């Protein structure tokens, strides 16, 4: 991973020379086996940039915070669609953005890695050996098989090399997803439950939602200026609003279902909603279910269509007449 890190720093330095105003990448976290988003605003700040198998964040959404600056952003294969989505829906001016693609060998599940590494060992280097990551620590070398240590979303990944980028660093990464793994396996499992069991499954999960809206804040498809859940209706008409912010099971369920429908056909599958959820609600189950249904009903979305659910043709199927 050292080469990519160095390349990133060099590219960032060069871009600042060319008039860049903001570079969004990753730096090492304050605790072991962790990375965090990093914002370099001047030339001197580029040395902190890193890339390692803990850079699981999708940085695309941060671009929206700098609408007027010339910005560069680092994207993995699963993040590239998010930039595209934001540009397509006019949230970003593509001409102001430099998208830097990095090949991804998969992201590691931190808890499992920490359990495997010696407690007091300091990670000094990480290398990607196609089917495993090799960790050099102060206590020796550790080989972590990808199959056992990758995040679940990486095991069904089909797009670990980004497309549509301005600049691609390093060599193309070999596929990381396990072949023959059905991305809809869990969706099918839940769908197969009988209605009371399925309701119980979701009720248990939705009941613990805190309505922190982290899933919405991080989502590249949730790009509204003001979310429909934030809109207040003034005066005596208060009662007549669509949506409630109350933290109750029905309202939580309402929120998540509405959000799933709002991003249906537009979800880029980055899985950030699920990652940031502090109470671990498997939100991607909802998104994946809708993605599967849309695929089944309408086939693959043509590239020039922003979302199949937002098109109209007089020849459309009309089951109501």
């Amino acid at each position, binding site marked *: 991973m050292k080469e990519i890190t160095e390349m990133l720093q060099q590219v960032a330095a060069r871009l600042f020379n060319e008039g860049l105003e903001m570079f969004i990448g990753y730096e090492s976290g304050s605790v072991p086996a962790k990375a965090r988003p990093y914002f370099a605003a001047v030339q001197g700040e580029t040395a902190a940039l890193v890339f390692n198998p803990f850079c699981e964040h999708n940085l695309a959404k941060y671009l929206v915070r700098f*609408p*007027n600056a010339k910005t560069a952003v680092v994207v993995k294969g699963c993040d590239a669609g998010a930039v595209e989505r934001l540009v397509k*829906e*006019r*949230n970003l001016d593509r001409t102001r953005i430099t998208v830097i693609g990095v090949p991804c060998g998969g992201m590691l599940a931190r808890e499992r890695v920490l359990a495997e590494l010696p407690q007091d060992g300091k990670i000094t280097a990480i290398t990607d050996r196609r089917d495993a990551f090799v960790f050099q620590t102060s206590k020796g070398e550790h080989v972590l098989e990808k199959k056992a240590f990758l995040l679940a979303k990486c095991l069904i990944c089909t797009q670990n090399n980004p497309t549509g980028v301005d600049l691609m660093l390093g060599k193309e990464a070999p596929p990381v997803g396990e072949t023959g793994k059905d991305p809809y396996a869990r969706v099918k499992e839940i769908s197969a439950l009988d209605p009371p069991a399925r309701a119980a499954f979701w009720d248990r999960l939705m009941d613990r939602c805190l309505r922190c809206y982290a899933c919405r804040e991080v989502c590249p498809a949730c*790009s*509204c*200026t*003001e*979310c*429909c859940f934030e*809109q207040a*209706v003034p005066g*005596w*008409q208060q*009662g*007549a*609003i*669509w949506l409630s912010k109350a933290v109750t099971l029905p309202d939580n369920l309402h929120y998540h279902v509405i959000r799933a429908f*709002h991003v249906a056909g537009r979800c880029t599958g980055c899985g950030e909603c699920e990652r940031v959820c502090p109470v671990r609600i498997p939100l991607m189950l909802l998104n994946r279910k809708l993605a599967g249904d849309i695929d089944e009903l309408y086939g693959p979305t043509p590239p020039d*269509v*922003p*979302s199949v659910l*937002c*098109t*109209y043709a*007089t020849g459309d199927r009309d089951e109501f007449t």
Partner: protein
Amino acid sequence: MPRIGVFVCWCGSNIGGVLDCPAIAQEAASFPGVVYSTEYKYVCSDPGQKLIVDAVKEHRLERVVVASCSPRLHEETFRQVLRRSGLNPYFFEMANLREHCSWVHPDTTVREQAQRKAVDLVRRAVAKAARLEPLFPGKIPVVRRCLVIGGGIAGIQTALDVADAGLEVLLVEREPTIGGNMVKLDKTFPTLDCSACISTPKMVAVAQHPNIRLYTYAQVEEVTGYIGNFKARIRQKARYVDHSKCNGCGTCWTRCPVTVPDDFNLGLGERGAIYIPFPQAVPNKPVIDLEHCRRSTRGKCGACAKLCPTGAIDYEQKDEFVDVEVGAIIVATGYGLFPWEKVYGEYGYGRFRDVITGLMFERMVNASGPTGGKIQRPSSGKEPKTVVFIQCVGSRDEARGKEYCSRFCCMYTAKHAHQILEKIPGSEVYVFYIDVRTFGKGYEEFYRRVRDEGAVYIRGRVSKVYQDGSKLIVRGADTLLGEQVEIAADMVVLATGAVPAAGAADVARMIGIPQDKDGFFQEAHPKLRPVETHTGGVYLAGTCQGPKDIPDTVSQASGAAAKVCGLLLRDELETNPLVSKVNEALCTGCLACQPVCPYRAIQPVTITERLPGQPPRERVVARVNEGLCQGCGACTVACRAGAIDLKGFTNKQLIAEVDALCL
């Protein structure tokens, strides 16, 4: 909370016979905001309306709810009453107690439930009324010019009627001449007057009318804008003949060395590469068919250019574009014939030369047609003695053709039968039919006359036509006798059904009007708005809306013209205020609303946003063109941010209604 008045209507016994109106009115008085509630026999009547006007004054009402019939019937009536009372006409809401309650629940065993439902419907209306906002129609200027697409008899009639009213008309026809299908016909049923004799004078009238600008050999390529203010782009296809110089002397088309099958005569005759479609063509000036012109296929000839006394031939002519502004559009694109050759194997897939269509027969029997009016077998040129007609070829055939009846085939077949019996002494005519439909004035009488003349009508379908020597053997069933029938015929004439003209789908897409399941243009209402479309300012005339005969086509064309005159003779148009509105502060500019709009009423605009503490920022948002928007509400559903609301049906109002009904 505004002061609301509720008026419950008995509608005579329509509502009053089923529901207890005084009880409804009494209960409505307790709904939030209601300060006055009453009932009356006929609220729409003059004293009923006066009741509202007086109550508004006396009780200082600010919103009015009438619980009566469908808004389609009387919403406008009551809005006018509010206007007279000094209220904004959109401070009105209706509860439909007739169609939604008393008519559908007349059963005495469900009286109680029906009564409860009626009260709920009124509760819903009151909840919405409390949230109504004043709405004001906008005003848009009108371009006093009408575009007519299609120069068949429908287009001709409608253009003449509009032009006679003093309005300017642009008539666009894609063929080199106007006249359409009607000028190809010989005689017209049931009066047997000559089709050309009654239509060519109209064609000439079009060409000479001071208010009509005629574009033949031209196509409308693009339509934008909205009612009263359309912009259209017309492509004038290159004719390779300068019509400003040509005097129509005819030297060129009589001397052209090329012969090609003549499409006007459906391949029964021949024409040159420079040609006029038929002698009475309007304009009576030729075009060059470059695909067959010897100068372009072999590189030399130029006979027409050499012979032309006025130097009108211009091989280098290019397509030209004309941009026009019009206030209304009449679509009159007509029909084509069902492509039977692709479907009907039992009639030989078009292999047998003596199996012809009704329209080919028209050309054959026409005195100015390729045979000079002589009925002859295309294979041998001999006169046929036995002729079989097969009805419903492509029509009324759910499996392989179209489900609908093409309406004019029964009658033209009867006319053909008459012409054969009249022109060929000793001839035999057999007609295979499913049903004979003679719905028009004088049609049944004509059909009887043809049967009396000797035409044999056989009820049943034909299973096979095959060649046996010089004869065509037609095998079919006589379902009335329950027997097989076999006829050795000299000629078979197919009554091919009508389908929308080629390119109808492109026209629909270009203008933004829907088609029905068969591809005909959809009228706004099958009975009460037959010439309007759902797009304001676009009207239909003739067979593009559905198969119809000449009298019906002409009536519809005049109807469309009357609608256009009614629209364009006004100085300004009032726009419907029940349209979508974008809250630009909430709009994120994703434009998901744009592709779902069937009227193309949404366009992006760039606004400068000024937020406190931030520099001004340019941002794209959606904007609704109020002239184009028809208030369907599709965009409001597509908007995730909830930035679009349909005025008169806002989210707030709808949710209040749902709450009133469900909570």
